[in-house]
């Protein structure tokens, strides 16, 4: 089971990195979200895998490692805040610059937000 877990983490990492390397904001955000899954799973793995061992006293015979769980729990919440920040930044960038490029290639006709707004409407 460990092998398949590691494989999944690898796949998530690959997909995350690939999407982060794309040239538009939204795709980068999706890539970051995938990456944060991978990171959380990876951090969680540092407590090793254990079945039926929830770290609640009296409920299991052997307990899984609670420390990585506590760390990952906050990481998930902070990860959400980070994703939210990036996605709002992406929207703001589109609002202010009129495009969602992050590859440094700003098309000339979309340089002006008002212009693109009118064109869309």
């Amino acid at each position, binding site marked *: 089971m460990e092998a398949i877990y590691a*494989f999944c983490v690898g796949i998530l990492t690959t997909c995350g990195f690939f999407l982060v390397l794309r040239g538009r904001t939204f795709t980068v955000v999706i890539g970051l979200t995938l990456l944060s899954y991978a990171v959380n799973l990876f951090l969680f793995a540092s407590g090793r895998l254990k079945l039926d061992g929830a770290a609640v006293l009296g409920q299991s015979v052997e307990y899984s490692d609670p420390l990585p769980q506590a760390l990952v729990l906050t990481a998930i919440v902070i990860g959400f805040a980070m994703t939210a*920040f990036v996605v709002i930044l992406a929207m703001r960038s589109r609002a202010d610059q009129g495009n969602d490029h992050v590859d*440094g290639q700003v098309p000339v006709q979309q340089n002006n937000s008002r212009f693109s707004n009118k064109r869309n409407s």
Partner: protein
Amino acid sequence: MNLLWVVLLPLIGTLVPLLTERFGRNICTLSVALLPACSLILVLMFAADIFDSQVIRQSIDWIPAIGLDLSFRLDGLSLLFLLLILGIGLLVILYARYYLSSKDSMGQFYAYLVLFMSAMVGIVISNNLIQLWVFWELTSISSFLLISFWSHKSEARKGARMALTVTGAGGLALLAGLLLIGDMVDSYDLDTVLASADLIQSHSYYPVALVLVLLGAFTKSAQFPFHFWLPHAMAAPTPVSAYLHSATMVKAGIFLMARFYPVLAGTDLWFMIVSLTGLITLLFGAYIAIFKHDLKGLLAYSTISHLGLITLLLGLNSKLAAVAAIFHIINHAIFKASLFMAAGIIDHESGSRDMRKLNGLWKYMPYTATLAIVAALSMAGVPLLNGFLSKEMFFSETLNQSTLGSLSWIIPLLATIGAAFSVAYSLRFIHDVFFNGEPIDLPKTPKEPPRYMKVPVEVLVALCLLVGIFPAYVVGDLLQIASFAVLAHDVPVHNLAIWHGLNIPLLMSFLAMMGGITIYYNRRHLFEFQSHFNEADAKLVFEGIVQTIVKVSQRIIETIENGSLQRYIFLLLLLTFVMAALPLLDLTQNIGSRPQIPLDGVTITGAVLLVFSAIATVIWYRKRFLALIFLSVVGLIVSLAFAQFSAPDLALTQLSVEIVTIILLLLALFFLPQIGKKESTNRRLSGDLLLSGLLGCVIATVCYAMLTTPLDSISDFFIANSKTGGGGTNVVNVILVDFRGFDTLGEITVLGIAALGIFKLIAKMRIYMPTRDDSGRKWSNDPHPMMLEMVSQTLLPLALLVSVYIFLRGHNLPGGGFIAGLITSVAIIQQYIAHGVLWIKPRINIDYQWLIAGGILIATLTGIGSWFFEQPFLTTWFDYFKLPWVGKFELASAMLFDLGVYLTVVGAVMLILANLGKLTTSERVQIKEND
């Protein structure tokens, strides 16, 4: 009594003018002068001990592990400088009160000035090399602020920049030198360094360290060829010039040489560098000064020349010369400060500093003229004034040295020539300004300045006379103890008498006087001779160099930084791959000895789903809506994985965060293009795929190796103490709110900050609201479906009840503030979706910012509460109670902390989503058509 206060008082005083500026000029000036005056009194109280040849030390541990402590040391040399810095500083504060116009921000000026004063005080009493350097840099920065005080003037900005660049670069050299010295003696402690002269001078790095330290000193003290910044720093208000260029900034370099004199001086290398630099600077400054038509320009070059004189004296490697150098430090500070102030008065009252216009001012301001003339005569070295005495000592020292072998006679000759020029420019200052006909179209009719503006000048000129006539009584002791510090307890006999009999130094003085008068009398020929040389404007040259550097770096930056995030990330990942993969090559075996869990069907199904959805997200990433759906599947499987591997808390958290995230991304997608175009070339795609694939392999390998390695964890402690120490059986929650409560407090603070940042980003967002999707279909304008409205409304109390239950049981069973907060948020968001923002607004009228602030406040107060029971921050308390009907239950302070977490999470999530949702309604910032 604490030495620390000597520097701390002025440092605190930096804030005073900002507070008292509003109460008017007089009160502001008085209040500003108060703290430095206290500091001066403190110094005077220490003085008695210093005159007993003691050294006062005081030290506070800072980072003892690397030999850094806040350490202070007061000896004779420090005392001398402290008196100059604080004494002249107070006079400058009084003077500036009358000099500054009502348009200048007085509070700002005084704040900079006092900051600079504190930095200077810090330099002279530091007992640690690094600490000394920090104060040294602080003088560079604060002098930059002072010189550029009139920042609307281009020359002030350029002058300040030049001063900062030159002295700042010198500061870096000094740091390198100090680090080298610290390395040689294995300590940054000044006492230790001063006692290790032999060790340092015999070290092979001695020449390097010497040159580096001297670079710092020479740039600061405007020695040739670094002198060019000083004349341009004259763009500063005159009180600044009077302070920086007489007693302080430029003397910092001199102080440095004097401070390290016992350690660095005495070698041939020291003699060659220091004395020759000093000699050239002395002659160059004196020669150029006479041609300056600007009053302050003349004084600037004269300062350069006198600094050269002091440097030359220090470089002669003779003990008497060092005594003379210290004497001249005092004298120069006194007469130069008064001259600058006099020049400021002339400028202030006549509106000009140009000596071609300023003539015959004697008639208009006889009193100021008298003061200025006395000071200028002192600068020229006329008997009965203080300048004469140190100049005599200087002459006799140049005669006594024989370091240039048979060519040694050149030094006294050149010294006499320099002195002659010094007499000539002093004469010009006197004759050209106060006599020599009538003023030529001055902007104002000159008159005497306000009464108290003259006081500082009077004090200084009185000192010139007192020192000049009764040297032994006035400064004898001070000179003795300062020399004592510089010469490491071996002060030669010197005689501070006015009359030494008819000797060669007196003859040299006489020759210099005659020479100076001759030069000034024939100045027209000299001016004509000089006009054949094109003097390069240092400002233009300097700016040219700076511009070239800026251009080159801009070109480099433009090549590297092309604005493409793709490229940055690619390079970053490439580097990560190299760094992560290289150590893996050494890992011969990636399977550890830990027994593995056998596979089962559910896990395989989950894994297949996860892999499939992740890959599908990538394949259809241009169809963004589809990609988002696949993404949510991945998130759900991840939360299932947490559930499977014994982490119920994580599963709950992941599930609720997943919901919130997907709603957020859906909302964002509404405003962003829903379908992407194919933009990347196939080559790029395959390159990216290769790199991310390789990185995925690396991560998977590391993960696998980690999973199969036996675990040696510190968690046994948490499990053992969770119930007894934290009062809860859910170890994960107890870790969050108790064992690592401080981390959690930090995390919710970050969460709150992120949410507030998002709030600000949204608040002014002027984004276009689409009416159609990317394929041209109109967005539906249907009202919210009734079924959804009804169901969600009914569900709300139930959902809230669940969240309360999850919150309450969190300490003992999976749950807690984080999860409960997320569930509450989801329940409220559900209402937003079902009813729309406008419907919710009057019903849930909560400022989510306050919720965040309240949450963090509660959590912090809970932590602080333990102080009242004399426990460390965030110590938890719990106990069990019994109530009829309810039975036995537990109360823990950790629950209060968890409540803070809960509120922050709800506030943050709702602040983000509710505000984003607002963008779709009439609440949003309107974009006007013709805007």
